[in-house]
């Protein structure tokens, strides 16, 4: 299984760009990398998914280097409402049994 490692917490201020990195040294060739956001008392919500290089959508970018042993979620100009826990999920190449969530990064955005 592709074990994932993320920072436990990060602090930022409104308007700054935030980069959260996830390490996944044992990622399999066909595994995907997915990031989720979770607010208190809610289930996680999908943010972005990628396989290699860079993916961008309306809320975030995902950078994946060529060796795919890590990935970085980039949140441009965060606001207070981006305060949440962010999870990295790796796997899927051999079905759901290979999916591994990270332990999550608590992002605190201050005024």
């Amino acid at each position, binding site marked *: 299984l592709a074990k994932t490692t993320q920072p436990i917490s990060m602090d930022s201020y409104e308007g700054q760009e935030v980069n959260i990195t996830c390490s996944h040294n044992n990622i399999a060739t066909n595994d*995907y990398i*997915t990031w*989720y956001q979770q607010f208190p*008392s*809610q*289930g*996680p*919500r*999908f943010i972005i*998914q990628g396989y290699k290089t860079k993916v961008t959508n309306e809320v975030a970018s995902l950078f994946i280097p060529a060796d795919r042993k890590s990935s970085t979620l980039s949140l441009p100009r965060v606001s207070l409402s981006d305060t949440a826990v962010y*999870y990295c999920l790796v*796997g*899927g*190449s*051999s*079905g*759901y*049994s*290979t*999916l591994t*969530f*990270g*332990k*999550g990064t608590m992002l605190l955005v201050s005024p």
Partner: protein
Amino acid sequence: DVKVTQSSRYLVKRTGEKVFLECVQDMDHENMFWYRQDPGLGLRLIYFSYDVKMKEKGDIPEGYSVSREKKERFSLILESASTNQTSMYLCATGETAYNEQFFGPGTRLTVL
């Protein structure tokens, strides 16, 4: 809009009781999952189901069983609840192993 609902938001049970947690989805997804979430441990997969009556163990299946009699419904069963099963339980659905998962709001279970 995908809807994943869980039978209870909060549940309090006593040690030794049989506990049923139910999850219902309206997206016609083949795959459904049960996770538990604990502080410092993140989300851990208990069981998943890829079709009606089909199930597979996740990372921490001990002490749990599941039932999927209908496509839209996936139940998690604690045969004899114990205090170490006090946790937040999250249900999710998805189309394939590669697609995003849609999560329910969670059930916070306390076993006394």
